[in-house]
């Protein structure tokens, strides 16, 4: 019975983390996470200037990334 309880709790906690993972996946796909990492790495705050700098750095990776047929 205990083992079923703990399994149920595990499942519930996994389900709870679903929205967070979904949002994280969207943020990764849409490069928001890459921008956040760029800000953290360079100790910058979000602004037009820092975003323009991020775009410059990110541009080469973005255009070389193939999109499948």
């Amino acid at each position, binding site marked *: 019975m205990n083992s079923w309880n703990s399994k149920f709790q595990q499942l519930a906690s996994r389900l709870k983390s679903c929205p967070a*993972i979904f949002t*994280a*996946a*969207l*943020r*990764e*796909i*849409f*490069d*928001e996470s*890459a*921008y*956040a*990492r*760029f800000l*953290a*790495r360079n100790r910058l705050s*979000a*602004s*037009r200037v*820092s*975003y*323009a700098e*991020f*775009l410059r*750095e990110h*541009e*080469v*990776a*973005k*255009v*070389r*990334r*193939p*999109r*499948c*047929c």
Partner: protein
Amino acid sequence: MPKSLRILIWLAVAVLGAFALATIALHRGERINAMWLVVAAFCTYGLAYRFYSKFIAAKVLALDPQRATPAERLDNGRDFVPTNKWVVFGHHFAAIAGPGPLVGPVLAAQFGYLPGTLWILAGAVLGGCVQDFVILLFSVRRDGKSLTEMAREEVGRLGGLVAYVAIISIIVILLGVAALIVVNALKNSPWGAFTIAMTIPIALFMGLYLRRLRPGKVLETSVLGFILVMLAIWGGQWASQTPRVAGWFTLTAPTLALLIIIYGFAASALPVWLLLAPRDYLSTFVKLGTIALLALGIIALHPTLHMPPLTRFIDGSGPVFAGNIFPFAFITIACGAISGFHSLISSGTTPKLIRRETETRMVGYGAMMAESMVAIMAMIAACVLQPGTYFAINSPAGIVGQAPETAAATISSWGFPITATEMHSLAQAVGEQTLYNRTGGAPAFAVGMAHIFSNSLGGQAVMAIWYHFAIMFEALFILTVLDAGTRVGRFMVQDALTHVWKPLGRTSWYPSILATSALIVGAWGYFLWQGVKDPLGGINSLWPLFGISNQLLATVALCVATTIIVKMRKARYAAVTLTPLLWLVAVTFTASWHKMFDPNPRIGFLAHAGQLAMGAATAANSRLIFNDRLDAFVTGVLIFMVALILIESAFLWLSVLSGRKQAGVKETAFVPSGFAAEEQG
């Protein structure tokens, strides 16, 4: 869970899957529900993932959770970032899912739903998923190296060269075919042309909004872009009903082709942040949402398939494209079953995000299963249409005739009854003047999708909106592939030209940018123009050429994978990649032979050229003859190159197996994973 219960569950899945497959394979003369395809697919994927991919992971690749991945060792917060496996899964799926799995199954539906469905399922679990999984893992073990680099290091210099040529060829042919699909979907369609034209200023606005007003808020900008696109679809109806505006946007195929060529060149030369990046975000947003919506629509509506399991066109006389089931069904459906292009993504960004080696199974094998499911949904969307409607939309005028009555009579004579009045009513329901002669798969898919959506949401009154939403979705998708593909091709050409003259390789030097952009756009633009001018609709010649080049790239990837497995001293398991490799060799080489030398002018390029040569010596005929010979030449060159890498690989395998050459792979050295240590506490 007790082991006996687990065994019982998997046995139940196996029995259910077998029953669903038997239902779709053995029913004759009765219509079946689309849910049988969905059940068969889920059971096949479930079993394959649980047992086959686990076998590959454990025995063939020996995934090591203790081994640090490049994302962990080289973590720089930029290219190499250890990322949650579900996030990588989503990222990888968004990169591999393109218009291919939507278009290929729709075209292959001319054989009936059975051949395509079986190939999508078997091809994916035994071929496509395996390719994506092993290439991803091999790239992870080599610091995220690309397929070309792995081919050069593990097979030889020739391998690297063949991979390079195959990639450039596939990009050029893919872009030409993709643009042709858009042209055929938008020609004489003011509503569609208006909507797609509006996506360009919308993308420019998004680029400026993102850079000037809300820096970094990509999701918010994409949502805003999506709302604007929906308004553009709504505005398209107004445009099509306002004679003056409709006149501006009623474009012929050649005009559309020219506009797309100009657009492709401009998009390649403009700053990335202004057009390419926002379009990419918008397209991805629409793509993920629409695929999810289509899945929900199919499950909610569980429509009946009207297409029979097999049609009379299994004899090779199909109007959509000519050729027998073998090999043509297998090159027509590439992306949903096995696609060489995926190997570029599995050896591109994804390996640099993998946190643990064991996660390559879920990302590589699992994401391809999801892509295969998209292909199953496309097959369903095509097969819910009445067969007469399907053939009326997809058959070129050169086969069924130009006049609606003639086309309807021809299609009815094949045993698929349809009347000109029914087609006229359908065209009116979706807001078009005509739906005849719209080869390429996109309009048929859009009608099927509109049928599913309008029956779930909004009813027949909004069928036109759903149709144009589907057309917008596909065209946006394809134009994004066009932008991105032209740039990737341009960079590849610049990389090669840097060996000739250094400044040509500089990606910021405008003369080089313009010259290489013109080269790539000119190459795919030529294929597009050829397709537009082809009286058989272009798809008959160009889609098989694309399928062949895509499958040839998969052949190269599987050659590299088999070579690495042999060099890992795991030759006893080489069948895992060797079996799909041999199948692809049989398929692509047979298809290439047919496309070059088949005596039927509808199949063989040279026979078609010969037939034209016997006709009047006009300039148009001379051009068509040249195009046929060019297509035959391109096919021949591709096959020759792949034959070279096959021979080189086979010699290498024999040398290693006979002990004449020392086995040894060029992996990066083992470094223990910090994540594993953390987990163990």
